[in-house]
């Protein structure tokens, strides 16, 4: 009997090329399939076109459409996948409004293997509950 391993997919949404590169690498090292886009508008468009991801890593501060508004739109569209917010912003009110837009979790930048481990664990825990 063979067990089919299904790779999980992540969408990295960040206008910062360094963050995109690092976060993409973090996920790929864990065997995830990763797509990266540069702002919230591109992320929303992917979902509108029918693309689906297991997890979205959403930066907060981005041009065109920021993380708060992109998350709000995705949830309004009925997107139920895991959305994890990341930001270097330390203002508690701004962070609260980001979480309130519909995040499943929030982490301060920069991400590292330990933080990604917690993100993935949280994702799997949620997955099992559903």
């Amino acid at each position, binding site marked *: 009997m063979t067990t089919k391993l299904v790779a999980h997919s992540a969408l990295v949404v960040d206008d*910062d090329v*360094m963050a995109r*590169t*690092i976060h993409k690498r973090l996920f790929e090292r864990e065997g995830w399939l990763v797509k990266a886009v540069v702002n919230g508008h591109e992320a929303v468009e992917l979902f509108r076109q029918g693309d689906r991801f297991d997890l979205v890593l959403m930066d907060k501060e981005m041009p065109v459409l920021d993380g708060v508004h992109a998350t709000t739109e995705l949830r309004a569209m009925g997107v139920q996948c895991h959305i994890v917010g990341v930001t270097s912003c330390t203002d508690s009110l701004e962070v609260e409004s980001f979480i309130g837009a519909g995040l499943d979790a929030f982490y301060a*930048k*920069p991400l*590292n*293997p330990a933080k990604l481990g917690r993100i993935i664990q949280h994702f799997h825990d949620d997955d099992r509950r559903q």
Partner: protein
Amino acid sequence: MERNPLPRQVALMRQSLFDQGYLDEQFVQLEELQDNTNPHFVEEVATLFYRDSARLLANIDQAMERTPLDFAKLDNYMQQFKGSCSSIGAKKVKSECTQFREYCRAGSSEGCTRTFQHMKREYSTLKKKLETYFQLARQVGPSNSASRS
């Protein structure tokens, strides 16, 4: 007697970047993402850092020419640059960014000007040290990636 002193030189150079406060733990986290499939990952990230920094520093330079200073805009640029510094573990430069942002909040043109000069010097020093380090590390080969002493 060492047959090839280069690996030790590279290791010492790397350690000095931490001991002298140029780099922090984030750099080590990046080194841990390096493997046989991505043997030059950290250098690639460093190259992105130099490019991003050049753009952001040029924006800040331009904004610093304005009178009066637009502190909100400067703070925004510096937040972006600080983010880049955090991503690579550029500890001293990041500290100058924090100081600059405090002067922005205080509305101090003199503080911003002085700190920006410090920051550019620290950035320039870090860039030279990293470029030298990676050049030497390449000579040694990918098997000599990060060994914490």
